[in-house]
C-alpha cells in the first residue's frame, strides 16, 4: 500500500515531463501515455482490492504524520473513483489517438492529458483540504489548456467563460480554506472532522455550505452550472468526453467527501435535496431546449449530477450507496455518449440535429453504440442507469422522500424524451444530403476510424458489464457508503496510528 498509493499521482506527472521532452516523437508520446495510464489502472485496481481486503490505506507524504504533513488516504470511495476514472482516461486516450483532429497535430496534448490524470488522482487520494485545492488547480489548468487546444474563436470564447468561472470558484476555495483554518487551525480532513465538531453549529453549517458552493461550481449543480453547457461542447470530442465523464464528478466526489466527513447530517438534508431536484429539472429542461448533440449531452451532465446529489442528500447508507453507484455508471455512460457524439460528427460532419438524419442506415454501428448508453442514461432497464436509478428510488422511498423521488422519475422520463430527440433527429429519417467535409469523400468519410469505434464499443461493453454484473459493484458502493456514514473509521485511520 505504501508503495502503491502515491503512484497514481506520481507516475502520470513523471510521464508528463517525459512526454513533453518527446514532443517531436508522436508515437513515443502515444506509447508512453498508454503505458502510463495502463500502469495507473493496474495500480488503482490493486489498491481497490487491497482497500477492500485491509481497510483504509494511509500514506504520509515525506514521512510527516498527520496533521503536520499531507496524507494520502485511500478509502473505498477514493479507490472506486480512482479506478473508474483511470479506466476512462485510458479508453479516451485510445479514442483520442484515433480521432483525426485532437492529438495528431498537437504536441502538447499528451503531456497536458497526463497532468490532468495526475490532478484527478490527487483529488481523489488527498486527505488534506488545501492539497485538494492544489489538486483541483492541477486538474483545472490542464483542462484549460485542453479545452483551448487549437485556439479557434469559439474555443477561446467558451474557454474564457470556463476559466473565469473556475478562477472565481478557486478564489472562493482559497477563501473557504482561510475561513476553515481560522475557525479550526488545521487543514487535514481527518483532523478537521474532530475540530469542526467543537465549534458553533451555525458557523460549522456556514462553512459546510461555503464548501458546497465551491465544489458545486466544479460539480455543476444548480444554480452554478451555467458555465458547463457553454464551454464543454466546443472542445474536440475526446476532450469533452473526458471532461464530461470526470471533471464534474471530481466536484461531486469533493462534495460527498466533505459533507459526509466534515458536516454529517442526522437525516435527509433539505438543502441538498432541493438543490438535487432543481439541478435535475433545470438540467433536463435545458437539454430539451437544445438542438446540438453535444449541447444536449452537456445539459444532461447537469441533470444527472442532481441524481448524485439526491443520493447524498438522503444521508442514508442506501442513498449514498446509490449515489456512488450512480457516479460510476454515469462516468462510463456519459463518456461513452460524448465519444459517440464524436463518431456522429466524424460520420456526418456535424453535430447539429437540424442537419443530421438517417444515420441508422448510414452508420448502423454508431446507432447501436448510441442507443445503448442513451437508454442507460435515461435509466431504462436493463442497463446500468436502471440499477442506479432503482437504488436511489429505493433509498428515497425507504425514508419517505416521495416528492424528490417523484421528481427524479419525471426527470428520467424527460431524459428519455430528450434522447429520442437525438435518436429521431439524427438516426431516423431519410439519410441527409450533408456529406462529411472530408475530401476523400463519401464512403470513407462515413466510417469513423476503427480506433475510435473500438474505444467507444469497449465503453459500451463496460456499461453493460456494470449493468449485468451490478451486484458486486453495488456491494462495493454499499460498503463505501457504510464507511462514509461512519467517519470515525476514516479519522481513526489517519490520526490514530
Amino acid at each position, binding site marked *: 500500500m505504501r508503495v502503491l498509493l502515491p503512484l497514481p499521482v506520481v507516475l502520470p506527472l513523471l510521464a508528463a515531463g517525459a512526454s513533453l521532452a518527446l514532443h517531436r516523437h508522436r508515437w513515443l508520446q502515444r506509447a508512453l501515455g498508454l503505458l502510463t495510464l495502463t500502469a495507473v489502472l493496474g495500480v488503482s485496481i490493486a489498491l481497490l482490492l487491497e482497500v477492500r481486503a485491509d481497510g483504509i490505506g494511509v500514506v504520509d*507524504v*515525506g514521512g510527516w504524520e498527520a*496533521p503536520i504533513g*499531507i496524507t494520502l488516504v485511500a478509502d473505498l470511495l477514493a479507490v472506486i473513483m480512482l479506478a473508474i476514472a483511470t479506466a476512462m482516461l485510458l479508453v479516451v486516450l485510445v479514442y483520442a489517438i484515433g480521432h483525426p483532429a485532437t492529438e495528431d497535430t498537437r504536441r*502538447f496534448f499528451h503531456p497536458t492529458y497526463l497532468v490532468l490524470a495526475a490532478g484527478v488522482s490527487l483529488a481523489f487520494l488527498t486527505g488534506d483540504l488545501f492539497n485538494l485545492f492544489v489538486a483541483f*488547480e*492541477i486538474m483545472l489548468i490542464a483542462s*484549460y*489548456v485542453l479545452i*483551448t487546444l*487549437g*485556439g*479557434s*474563436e469559439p474555443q477561446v470564447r467558451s474557454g474564457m467563460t470556463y476559466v473565469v*468561472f473556475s478562477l472565481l*470558484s478557486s478564489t472562493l476555495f482559497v477563501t473557504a480554506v482561510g*475561513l476553515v483554518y481560522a*475557525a*479550526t487551525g488545521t487543514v487535514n480532513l481527518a483532523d478537521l472532522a474532530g475540530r469542526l465538531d467543537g465549534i*458553533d453549529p*451555525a*458557523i460549522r453549517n456556514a*462553512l459546510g*455550505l461555503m464548501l458546497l*458552493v465551491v465544489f458545486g461550481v466544479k460539480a455543476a449543480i444548480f*444554480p452554478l452550472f*451555467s458555465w458547463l453547457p457553454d464551454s464543454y*461542447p466546443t472542445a474536440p470530442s475526446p476532450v469533452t468526453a473526458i471532461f464530461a465523464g470526470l471533471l464534474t464528478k471530481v466536484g461531486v466526489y469533493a462534495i460527498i467527501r466533505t459533507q459526509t466527513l466534515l458536516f454529517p447530517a442526522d437525516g435527509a438534508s433539505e438543502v441538498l435535496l432541493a438543490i438535487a431536484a432543481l439541478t435535475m429539472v433545470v438540467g433536463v*429542461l435545458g437539454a*430539451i*431546449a437544445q*438542438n446540438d448533440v*453535444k449541447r444536449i449531452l452537456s445539459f444532461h451532465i447537469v441533470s444527472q449530477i442532481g441524481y448524485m446529489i439526491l443520493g447524498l442528500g438522503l444521508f442514508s447508507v442506501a442513498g449514498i450507496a446509490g449515489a456512488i453507484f450512480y457516479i460510476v455508471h454515469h462516468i462510463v455512460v456519459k463518456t461513452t455518449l460524448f465519444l459517440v457524439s*464524436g463518431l456522429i*460528427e466524424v460520420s456526418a460532419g*456535424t*453535430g*447539429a440535429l*437540424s442537419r443530421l438524419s*438517417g444515420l*441508422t*442506415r448510414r452508420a448502423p454501428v454508431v446507432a447501436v453504440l448510441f442507443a445503448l448508453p442513451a437508454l442507460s442514461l435515461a435509466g431504462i432497464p*436493463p442497463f446500468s442507469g436502471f*440499477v442506479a436509478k*432503482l*437504488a436511489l*428510488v*429505493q433509498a428515497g*422511498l425507504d425514508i419517505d422522500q416521495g416528492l424528490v423521488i*417523484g421528481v427524479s*422519475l419525471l426527470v428520467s*422520463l424527460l431524459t*428519455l*424524451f430528450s434522447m429520442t430527440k437525438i435518436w*429521431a433527429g439524427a438516426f*431516423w429519417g*431519410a439519410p441527409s444530403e450533408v456529406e462529411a*467535409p472530408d475530401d476523400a469523400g463519401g464512403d470513407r468519410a462515413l466510417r469513423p476510424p476503427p480506433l475510435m469505434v473500438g474505444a467507444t464499443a469497449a465503453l459500451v461493453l463496460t456499461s453493460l458489464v456494470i449493468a449485468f454484473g451490478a*451486484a458486486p459493484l453495488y456491494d462495493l458502493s*454499499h460498503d463505501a457508503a457504510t464507511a462514509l456514514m461512519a467517519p470515525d473509521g476514516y479519522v481513526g485511520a489517519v490520526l490514530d496510528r
Partner: protein
Amino acid sequence: MPGRLVGDLVLTAPAPLRRSAALLALLGLHAVLAGAAPVLGRRLGPRVLLVCALAPAATVAWALARAGGVLDGRPVTEVRPWVGELGVELAFRLDGFSLLMVALVSGIGVPVFVYAWRYFAPRPDIGRFAGLLTAFAGAMLGVVLTDNLLVLYVCWELTSITSYLLIGFDDTKAPARAAALQALLITGAGGLAMLAGFVLLGQAAGTYTFSEILADPPTGTTVGIAAALVLAGAFTKSAQVPFHSWLPGAMAAPTPVSAYLHSATMVKAGVYLIARFAPALAPVVGWWRPVVVSVGVVTMLVGGLAALRQHDVKLLLAHGTVSQLGFLVALFGAGWEEATFAAAALLLAHGLFKATLFMTVGIVDHAAHTRDLRQLSGLHATLRPVAVVAVIATASMAGLPPFLGFVAKEAGLEALLHEGSSATLVLVGIVAGSALTVAYGARYVWGAFATKPGRAGAPMAATPVEPPGAAILAPAVVLTVATVLLGAVPALADPLVEGAATSLDPRVEGVHLALWHGITVALGLSVLAVTVGVALFVGRDRMARLQAALPRTSSGTEVYQATLTATLRLADRVTSVVQSGSLPRYLQVALVTLLVLPGTALLSGPGLPDDLAIAESPLQVVVAALVVGAALAAARSRRRFAAVLCLGGVGYGVAVLFVIQGAPDLALTQLLVETLAVVIFVLVLRHLPERFSETSRRLSRLSRAAVSAGVGTFVAAFALIAGAARQEPAVSGEHLARALPDGGGRNVVNVILVDFRGLDTMGEITVLAVAALGIASLVLSGRSERTAGLAAHDPDEPAPATEADGPVGAVSSAGGDRLG
C-alpha cells in the same frame, strides 16, 4: 418459498415446485436471435423472420411439455441472482396464468412471424425488423414469466422500447416517428409510476417476489398509493381511458406489429398485471374495485364508439382493441372469481381473433393498396378466403356462437349475473359495449369486403386487387381454426383457462366453459346485445349524424400534445433564463448563491464577536487604507493602464500588510508575482484601446453594487466570526517546534513548503509548467495563423476552420432552423 397452493393439494402436501433452466435458456435464445437477426437479414432477406420464429416456437414446445404439471398446480420456477441487495432477482415462475400468457405471446408469435415473412417485400432493413420483433417477443415473455416485480419492470420497459422502435420502423415518415414517441412517453410515464409503486409495495411487503406479495398482500395507506401507481402503469400500457390515445397512433407500425404487439400481446401487459393483483388488492384497497371496473367499462364504451367513426379499417380495429381491453380490465379488475375465469377465456379468445383480424387487414391493404372502407368494395368475391377468415374472427369478436368469443363473453355475463346487484351497473355497461362491438365488427366486415352502393344506386365497382399468396393467409387460417375449434368444443380450452384462473384465484375451482348453458338470462343479454348492435349498424348513417352532433370529447391526444408543447415551451423559457449565455450574469448568480447559502447560515449564528481589536498598529490602518483606496481606484478607473497599475498597487500594499503580519517570505513572493503579473498585463493590453468602452449594461449598476457590497460584507463578517470561533490551537505549533530538529531549517515557512507540505509545492510547480505550456500553445497557434495570413480577418466573419475544429466549426455555425 412455496407458491400459492391450489386445489386439493392444499390438503395434502406443498406442491413440489419444478425447477428449470430452460426458462432462462429460452429468453437467451430470443436475445441471441434478436442480436443475430440484423446480420442474418442481409443474407436471408425476409426469411430471417422464419429463423427468428424458432424462438417462440421453442417456447411453445417447452410450454406444452410442461403444461400438464403446471395446470395441475405445480409451477415451474427458476431463480438466479442479479442485484440481491436491491431485491432484483432473475426469478421466473410458470404457473397456470403465465402459461396462458405464454400461449398468447409465443403461440400467436409463431404465426405472426410467419405472416411477417410473407408480408414484407425484401428490404435492406428486414433484419433489423426481425431483430426488434424477436427482442419484443423475448421481453414480453419475460413480463409474463418473471416472479420478481423489478424484473417485471425491466421487461416491461423493454417492451416499451421495442414498441417505440417498431412503431417508428418506417422512420422516414414523420407521423410514424410522432406516434412512436407518443406511445413511448405515455407508456414510459406509466412505467415509471409503476416502478415507484413496485418499490413501495416491495418495501411494505419486505420482498419483491411477486407470488409472495400476492399470497400475503401488505396493507396500509402506502399500499393504496402503491396500487394507484401500479394501476397508472397498467392503464397506460393497456390503453385505458384516459391514456388510450397512443394505441390508435401506434397503427403507424407495419401490420404484423399491430397484430402482435398492439392487439394480441403487449397491450395485454397491463391487463396481466391487473389480473394478478386484483384478487389480492381488491379486498385490501377499498377503492380498487370501483375504480378499476369503471375505468374498464368506460374504456370499453369509449373505444367502441370511436371504432364506429373510423374509415381506416386498421384504426377501426385499433379502437376495437381499446374497447376489448376495457372489457378485460373490467372483468379481471373486480377480483370476482367467476369473472376472473371468464376474463381468462376472453384473453385467449381476443388474442386469437384480433391477431387474425389485423392479419386480414394487412392482406387487404397489400392486395387493394388501401384500407379506407369508403374505397374498398367487392372484396368478398375477389378475396373470398380472406373474407371467410375475417368473418369468423369478427363473429368471435362480436360474441356470436359457436366461436370462442361467444363462449368467453357468455361466461363473463354469467359471472356478473352471479355477483348480483353490486355488478348490475357493470353488466349494463358491458352489454352496451358488446352491442357496440357487434356494430363495429359488422362495420369492419361490411367495410372491407362488401360491395358498396356507389353513386346513383348502382353498386360500386370492385376494388382491383392483387391476389395474395396462400402462405400469407395460412397463419390467419391457423388462428381461425383455433377460434372455431375451441369455441365448438370448449372442453379443449377449459383446462388452460381453468388452470390460468385458478392460479390467479383458487376460488375459481370448478367453473367450466360451456358453449350452451341453456336458455339463461346471459343468453338473453347476448341476444339483446347482438340485436342492438345490428340495429346500430343498420342505422349507421343516423348514428354517424348523432355522433357528429354530440360534442367531441377529448381523445387524450390533445392533452398529450398540449403537455408536450407546454414542456417544450417551459424548457425554452427556463433555459433562456438560467442559460442566458452571459458570463457576468452567471457570475452574479454564483455570488448571490454564496450570499444565500452560507450567508443566511451565518446570520443564524452567534454574530460578530464582542472583543474585536480595531487594529494591531497604526501602520496597519494606514496601509489598509491605501490598499482599499487603490482597489477603489481600480474599480473606478476608465483607463486600462491606470486600472492595472492600481491593481499592482493593491498587490504591493497587500505585500506590506504581509510584512506587518509577520510574513516576510510571503511579502517577497507577492512583490515578485505582482510585478510579473503587471508586466504580462501590460504586454497584452498594449493592443487594446486606452479607455474602456462603455458597452452594454445588462446588469444595472445598482444590482452590481448591491451584490458587491453583499459579498464584501459577507466575507469580512465571516472572517471575523470564523476567527473568533477557534477552540483549539493550530496544528502549526508542531511545525514551529519541529522545523529545526526534524526539518533541518530555520525558516519555518520554507520548511513547510519544501518538506512538511512538499506535495503542495510540487503541485504548484506543475500548475506553473502547464500554464506556461498553455500560453505557449495559444501564442503559437496565433502565430502560425498569422504566418499563414489568416490572423487578421474581419471580426464579424467566423474564424477560419483550422484542422482542429472541423466538427467544432460546424457546430458553432449550425444556426438556422430547429428540429421540429
